[in-house]
Each structure stands twice: as C-alpha cells, then as structure tokens.
C-alpha cells in the first residue's frame, strides 16, 4: 500500500510536468491553430540558462533567473515577429499540416542546436529553489520539495488559463481567433497580438517550470523534445483545445507511467504505457476529444 501511495505521489509530480506543457500546447493551439512542439525546449533553456549563469558565470541566483526569463521572452517575441509573421500574416497564409507541425519542430531543433553550443551536452539543473530532503506526508509517503512547487505551478497555471478563457472578454477573443482567423480579424480582434502574447507567456511559463523542476530530473540540451512530445500527447487527449482537460490528461499519464514502471516492469513500463495510449485513441477517438481537433 505504501508502495502504491508513493508511486501515485511520484506519478502526480511527473504528471504535473506533462500537464503544464499540455496546457501550454492547448492554449496556444486554441489561439493560433499551431501545435507548439518547442515548449519543452523553453523549459530546457530556462533550466540550463539559470544553471549556466549562476554556476559558471557566478551571477546571483535571482539575477540569473531574471536574465534567463528575459532572454526567453525576447527570443519568443522575435520568433513570432520574424518567422510566424512571415508564415501567417502574409497574403497567402500557410495552412494545414505544414503550419501545424513543422514550424515549431524546426524551432525545437534550432533551440536545441543553440543550447548545445552554449551549454554543452552534460546533464545540469538549476539550483533548487526550496532545498532540503523529501517531505514526509505521514504513513510512509514521501514527496520531494520541488515536486510540491511543480504541482502548485501546474494547478495554478492550468486553472488560470481555463478561467481566463471561460470568463474574460479577451479569453473569448482568443477562442474566436482559433475558431475563425479571418472572422475574428473582421470583427476587430487583433489575432496577431493574441498569438504573440500567448506564445511569449507560454514560453515564459515553460521556462519558469523548467527552473523549478530541473532539480528533480536534470536536463540536457535535448531533454526538451521528450517533454514536448509527452505534453503534445497529453494535450491531444484533452482535444488540443481545452487547457483544463489537458491538465487532467497530463496528470493521468504521469500516474499511469509511475504505476506501470513500479508494478509491471521498469524496463518496458513506458512501452506498455504508449501502447495503452495508442489503444485509447483507436478505441474511443470521440471520447478522447479527437473529433473536435480535426477541422475539415
């Protein structure tokens, strides 16, 4: 029983990592109809950037964090201004699968390439923000301190995005941008501004998350791709457009992964999990939210 409890706790911590990225993917897809597969790379940049500045350059920790976040925000802004504007705002918009997958795939490669040059190929992590041993929750249950921060981060960001879209006027405008780009522009919604601001906000969120989370797992320059992929899968199970569902899906995948790793096989746990996930899509596509994601 203790094993089960600890696995669930560990699963929730891992799951909240996936959940945050799923939320980021879902929110931006809702605005722009583009899947952001570079979110994980922003997290990696956050973690490795802070590590580099504080450990190698000996900057104080708060300054390192601020500088890294500023760099991520500036990069996100420039990327939207240059690449996405060229791809989306010209007379002939790029539509369909090219936009959906490829621009952010390429961005992910690009960021990883830069990170390789700047930070090298070793495993690093930002300094722990809440140092100390694992907390005992009683009854033999343990949770790492960073895990609590991670979970809090996930719930707060997911909840805020869900409330924002549901209850505010600009949230509605965001929804309109994704539903019908041209229609939204005609009624006076600046879709470009929303696309840009949400892109920068999700990049920042991912970076903060990477800084908070990295003491648990440690990052290399290519860690981002795996996280993005799991976040993408979790977002898919939330129908790509619903941050709250994406959050739940991310947590569920994390718990499933931990339980399979603990009870089935440490070696093949992930393999079994992916098989289960694939089976779910195929057996119940509608219930998993896929019909709404496919726009014809």
């Amino acid at each position, binding site marked *: 029983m203790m094993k089960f409890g600890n696995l669930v706790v560990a699963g929730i911590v891992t799951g909240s990592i996936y959940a945050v990225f799923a939320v980021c993917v879902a929110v931006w897809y809702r605005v722009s109809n583009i899947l952001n597969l570079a979110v994980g790379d922003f997290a990696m940049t956050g973690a490795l950037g802070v590590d580099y500045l504080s450990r190698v350059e000996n900057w104080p920790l708060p300054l390192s964090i601020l500088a890294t976040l500023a760099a991520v925000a500036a990069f996100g802004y420039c990327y939207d201004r240059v*690449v996405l504007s060229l791809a989306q705002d010209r007379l002939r918009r790029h539509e369909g699968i090219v936009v959906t997958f490829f621009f952010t795939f390429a961005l992910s490669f*690009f960021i*990883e390439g830069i990170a*390789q040059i700047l930070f090298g190929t070793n495993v690093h992590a930002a300094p722990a923000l809440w140092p100390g041993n694992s907390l005992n929750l009683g009854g033999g249950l343990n949770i790492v301190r960073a895990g609590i921060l991670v979970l809090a981060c996930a719930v707060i960001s997911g909840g805020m995005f869900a409330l924002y879209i549901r209850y505010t006027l600009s949230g509605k405008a965001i929804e309109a941008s994704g539903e019908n780009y041209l229609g939204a522009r005609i009624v006076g919604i600046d879709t470009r501004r929303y696309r840009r601001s949400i892109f920068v906000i999700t990049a920042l969120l991912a970076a903060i998350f990477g800084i908070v989370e990295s003491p648990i797992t440690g990052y290399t320059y290519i860690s981002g*791709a795996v996280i993005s992929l799991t976040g*993408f899968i979790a977002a898919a199970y939330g129908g790509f457009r619903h941050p709250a569902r994406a959050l739940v899906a991310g947590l569920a995948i994390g718990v499933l992964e931990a339980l399979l790793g603990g009870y089935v096989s440490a070696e093949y746990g992930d393999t079994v999990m992916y*098989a289960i996930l694939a089976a779910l899509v*195929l057996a119940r596509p509608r219930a998993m939210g*896929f019909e709404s994601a*496919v726009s014809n």
Partner: protein
Amino acid sequence: MAGLSRLVTARMRPGRPGAPLTTTGLVVVVGLVVVLAFGQQYAGSVLVLAFTYAIVTTGMAVQIGFSQQIAFSQSVFMGLGAYGAALLNTHLNLPTLAAAPVVMAGSGLLALLLGSVVTRASGLALAVATIMLPLIATGYVSSAGYLGGSVGMPLAGNLWQASSPELIAAGNGVITVIALGLVVFVASRILNSDVGLELYALGVDERTAASMGISTPRRKLELFVLGSMFASLGGAVYAGTQLFVPATLVGSAAELSLLIMLFVGGRRSIIGAVAGALAVEYVSGASEWVSVNILLVEGALITVVLLVDPEGLAGIAATARARLRERRRGSGGLAEVPGPADTAGAAADAADAAGAAGAAGAGRLRVTDWAPASAPASGTGVPLLECAGVSKDYGGLHVLDAVSLTLPARGRYGLCGPNGAGKSTLLGVIGGTVSPSAGRVLLGGTDVTGLQPQQRFYLGMSRTFQAVHLITGRTVLDNVAVSCLRSQRSSLAAGIAGSRLGEARDKAAEALDYLGMRGLSGREVSSLTLESQRMVEFARAIAPRPRLLLLDEPAAGLSEPQRDRLSGVLHALGEVTCVLLVEHDLGLVAQITERIFVLDYGRLVFQGSPAEFNDSAVVNSLLIGQ
C-alpha cells in the same frame, strides 16, 4: 544542361504526377552517374545514404504528401527492415539482397495487421496514435539484447558481394539506385492511375472523398502498407550498405529527420522527396561544423525553405520555372502559372460563358441523355427516398427532431429554414456523413441507414458540400472524373499495373459538355474563379448520373448568368432524376422547385408547392420576418 534542368523542374512541379517512365529514368540515370562518378570518395557514401533515405521518403510523399495521411510509422518499419535483414544475414547466412524481399513481405503483413487497427483513425487522431509506434519501438529495441541494445547491430553481408572494396562500393551504389528507381516507378505509376486520383481526393478531404464513392478505409490501409513496405526496403538497403544498424534508426528523432527530408524537398512531389533526402544528407555531410551542429542547421534550413514555399524545393523550382517562362513569353504565359491567377481565369470564364450562352437550352434539348446510370426502375409506388422519424442529438441539443419526408424518383425539391435549423445535418444524414440518433433512411425501398457514404454513392446518391473541396494541382477534367472512377474494387496494386482513368475522363467530359464547360476542362482548378470552382463541383456531382442529387447551397457565390444556367440545368435534371437542394435564395427555390420543405429547430414545419410556400404564414414569419 538547360534541357536537364527543364526536365527536372517539370517533373518536380508539386501536385502534378510526373510521367512514370521519365521520372524514373531521370532518377536512375542521375543516380547511376553520380554513384559511379563519386562512388569511391566520401561524397559517394553520403550519396548512397541519401538515396537510401529517398526510398523511404518517396513512400512518404504518396502517403503523407498526396493523401494527407500523417502516420509517424516510417522509422519503425525502416528499423524493421534493417534489423530484419541484419538478423537474416547474421543467423541464416542469407545474402542481404535476398533478405530484402523477405523483410518487405514481413513488413507488409505486419503493416496490414497494424494498419487495420491504426488507420481507422483519421487526421490528428491518426498522427497521435502512430506517434506512439516509434516510442514503443525505441523502448523495445534499446533493451533487446539480441539486437545490440541501445548501441545497435553489426552485420557482415554487403548488398553486393565482390572481391575488392571498390567493386563492393560500386555494386552497393548501383543496387541502391535501382531500388530507388523501382520505388519511384511504382509510386508515380500509382499516382498517374485511377486509384491515384482517388488518393488525391483522399488528400483533399476524407468526407468528400467518401461521398464520391471512394472507399476511404481501404485506401488508407493500402497506403499504410505501401509506405511501410517502402520504408522496410529502405531499411534493408541501409543495413546492406552501412553494415551496421544503429538503434537510433528507430525512434521519434529518426522519424523527424525523415519528415524534414520530405518537407524540405516538397511533400507533393516524387522528385521533390528524392531531392529533399539528397539536400538534407548532403548538407549534413558537408563539413565538420555542420555535422556537429546538425540540429541548428536542420532547424534553420527547414524554417527558411518552408517560409519561401510550403511545397519545399519542388515548389521553389516550379515557381522559378514559371517565372522564367513568363518572362520569355510575356504575359501570354500567365495562364500556365499554377496558383490563383484570377485575371486569366476570369477571361477564360467569360469566353466560356459566351460559348455556353445556351447551355440551359442545350441541356433541355438533350434531357434524355442524363437519365440515371444505375436505374433499377424502382417498383411503382415505392418512393426514391424516404426519411422516417430521423432525429439527431448532439449531447442535449436536438438538431433534428423526428423528421419524416418522402421524395419520388423525379422532380426538384427545396429544403429551407433559418440558420441552424438542421438543413445541412439532414442532408448529412441522407448522404451518410452524419449518423442519426434515431430513425431510418430508405433509398428505393432499401434501408441504407447503416451504410457508409461510399456505399450510398454506388446506390445512386451524389452530393455537393457547402465549402468547395477540389483537388489543387489537377485539371478540371480530372476533378470531375473523380466521381466516375468506380474503382472501389481496384487495389493500389492494380494502379501499378494499369490505369482506367481514360474511361472516367470520357464520362467527365460528357458532363462538362452537358454544362457547356468544355473550354475549362484542361485548366488547373486553383486558377479558376470561385464561381467556376462551384460549377466544377456541380459537374462532379452530376457526372456519375445519380438517381438522387443532394445539393448544399449550389447557388452561393454564383453570378447572375451562372445562376440562370444552374436553374436551367436543374430544370432539365428534374425531369429524369430527383434533386434535393438546400438554398437560402428563396426566389431561386420558388422558381426552380416543385415542392418545398421548411425546417425550424430541427422540426419539419411546412411542406407544399411554391405557391403555398409564398402564401404560408409560417414561412413568412420564419424566413422573411413578417
């Protein structure tokens, strides 16, 4: 050299299938020349590797590019081919060349099994379901000891066994090029055939394709098998030329590099797919710095190429060639430029309209010509279409509420109602794209409620949709021919053997003649004005000579003369077949139809003649707001 470059760009034009023999000849000749010229140098090994990947990307162009079936399974089957060949060679001493067909057959079988489950999904669901495959495969491969675990597996057998390393390198290179040539030939034969045209239609929209009689589940499965077999051939060639199967050959990163090759080259072009593999491999082998920083380079490369043209290198080459020709000929060459060239389109349309001034009259004269093809004279008294208590709920929302209506074998019928009344949903239920929550649909007395759209098509049902779904890159004639293919029993393999496109094109030409649109038949569809595109869709709907024609807002976006033409044609068609149209233009409905149905909040609130329609208080309050 100029001749060669012209040949290359002509074959590379995205969206158009190149002639199989010229395309294959080009690939094989260029491939052999470079392999034999550079075979003994470092560049030679890079080229052979690039041709190996090109075998895989050619299959991807058919599956992902033309048919828009985004499946992330290529690296898995490439790995299967490579590991399979290595195992057969190491343990059974089978030469790698002989192992290749064995692993291809094995992959084909596995793909058939896996595909029959996976290809039930479409769109993003298919992408998400298949993205698990490389993840599962990586997990398996990296912990399987007999495959060399996370390192990989060496083997001894070259594709070509010879005494000297020079001969081995040359032989390996030649075999790789021949394998690529074979794959290119098969792919372009398929794309040029009637089955290939179905794949193009599948790539536009699955729902529309099904409504034109295309058996979408079957085609998707066949594509999955084809792509997988090509990928495993690529894998076997990889094993036989590199003599080592790295574990990284399988997995999401490998999957991405394959996709990058395809998209850099141009996803809707066979030559483009080959060129993409060459370009990416050449760039990665170009210098020490590049191979260390390959991620950065690939990321920047694909961003730049896609920004310049979403159709990749093939698109860039085609545009450059079109520009060049334009400059050489002056403005006269404009009509040949693919893409929206509305000025030329309008001119040609005007000429066409002038030539077809009496199209409606012509239609009326030849009214008996358009009798339904499959007209098993339904027994007297049996209505052609019967909807009995059809309901459709989405959650708690009743979009259709117990709608019952019957239509006889001939005549023109209108379906009206305010926005959101359920008109398009009812059309969807009749056409088979929407399954009703309750009620039955009968066609000529046969219950078709459980039938797929493509099965209903073969029972004589044909329809148009609100939005225009045409195949860009193909001509008007081919777009109309899609609905005359009747290839439901042909397989992709039949497409390799021969094409029955000719018959379908003849039927399509008849339909275009009937509508007075013959002048447009050679034009590429995206160069037409929107109204001409709608008329092409209409031609496509009537070309198979349906018993029941379902039209969703056929007059939307049409000009006044075309509206008149349309109403003339509908008058004529109504004499021989049954036409049901959803339309907002009440004047047009009252003018054309002989009986009108009105829906409101999913309920049938009125049915009657145009005269009754004009006088009805219900109709006036609902539709005119009085």
